[in-house]
């Protein structure tokens, strides 16, 4: 509860300064381009990687991607680019 309030304060200040959310907080930014390209910024690491299934952990939860021929095209410590036929994306929020 305490942490939540702190975060809200931050967002208010940031709203005034118009700082992008993905920079100030550790929340991930997910961009899906078309049906076969997906860019995830602010991720923590890969939990599982299969050709048809990718599990990526972020600071607020886990991201599951289902599809075919999934490739980790580009990987840096901040962002990850996934290419391949993406079918479904779902989230598992940490309680």
């Amino acid at each position, binding site marked *: 509860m305490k942490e939540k309030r702190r975060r809200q304060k931050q967002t208010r200040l940031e709203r005034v300064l118009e700082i992008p959310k993905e920079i100030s907080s550790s929340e991930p930014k997910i961009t899906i381009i078309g049906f076969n390209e997906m860019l995830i910024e602010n991720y923590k*690491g*890969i*939990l*599982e*990687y*299969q*050709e048809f299934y990718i599990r990526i952990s972020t600071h607020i939860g886990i991201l599951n991607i289902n599809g075919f021929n*999934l*490739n*980790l*095209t*580009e*990987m*840096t*410590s901040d962002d990850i*680019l996934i290419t391949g036929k993406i079918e479904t994306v779902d989230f598992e929020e940490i309680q």
Partner: protein
Amino acid sequence: MYIRILLNYILGYVNIRIEGYFVEKFVNICISKGIFLWNIKKVKQATAYANIGIRDFKKISKIAKNTKCRISIQSKKGLPFISNKYRKRKVFAILLIAVIICIICLSNFVWNIDITGNATISKEEILNSLEENGLKIGVFKSKIDTKQIVNNMRLKRNDLAWIGIKVEGTNVIVKVVEADKKPEIINEEEYCNIVATKEGIIVKVNALNGTPLVKEGDTIKKGSVLIGGFLEGKYTGTRYVHANGSVYAKVWYTQKEKIELKQLNKIRTGVNESKYSVKINNFQINFYKTLSKFENYDTIEEIKKMKIFSNFYLPIEVIKNTNYEQTFENKEYSIEEAKTIGEEKAKQALENTIPNKEDILNTYINYNETPEAVEVEVIYEILEEISAKEKIVF
């Protein structure tokens, strides 16, 4: 991101196969340690392919050991590997270097001299005098001192008004402006006559100094004295002077043209054949042996200089001989036609020789008809100054 991949391509990268049950772990550790992996592809349950730069590849083995993955190199890509591949082919590399050195060396010499702007002076003449001053085909480029050559040329030859020498690659462009021949100038203190340069009938004598020896209406020959370079006085006797003045006369220019009534005209049939030969310096190699298959033909020779890049000329020429087949055709002109053709031809020829068209006073045209041909004579009567100074030789 693409810049990073491009940089890795230049520095070299390897495609690796990762085998193991903890590929994800391996990838995560790699990322956290700042090792850049790209194009990760999982093929089976326990194998994945990835690209990695060669610098990072050395660090990878320790991580692989920890995560119990096996790593094998699939393919090596990038410039370092390409150069390594050719390192073994020593002859190829040596020859490549030799060719480059050859080109650099050859580009220090002059291989072609272009001369532009000459009309009356022949190309060979200019080339000869250039050679005397040290500019010829095959000379070392840095030895050419264009200023010196230009100065020498202008001192030696008085028929050139201006010369420009420009070195472009292995090509030397010589621009020439021809000078009009100057009349001989006679010193004011020396005695001279005024003589006729052409035959004609005197129209006007304008003597400024000296004694006029001709009057209006006189017919004079070429070289006869018009104004004598002396003055006669009652008491002083004969005194020689520098004659001065101008004399105008009617001068005739004639041109005869003979037009045959029956003429044989050459006509190209449109069939042609080409023959090639190569000339290296002064050694010519012909790529043909047979004579032309045509009975009557016209040969046109085209010379093409070989060059690399835009201005690097080599001492190799390709000569193309094109033979055009011809047939002869008889054509008959009527007398009237022949007359007009002859007249036009003659007039054209005359107009090229006379200095000013506006000075024409009269034109006379004479025809002489014979059964085979028509002779046309065109005479132009022109008012012209015919005076020129000539030194008196005692």
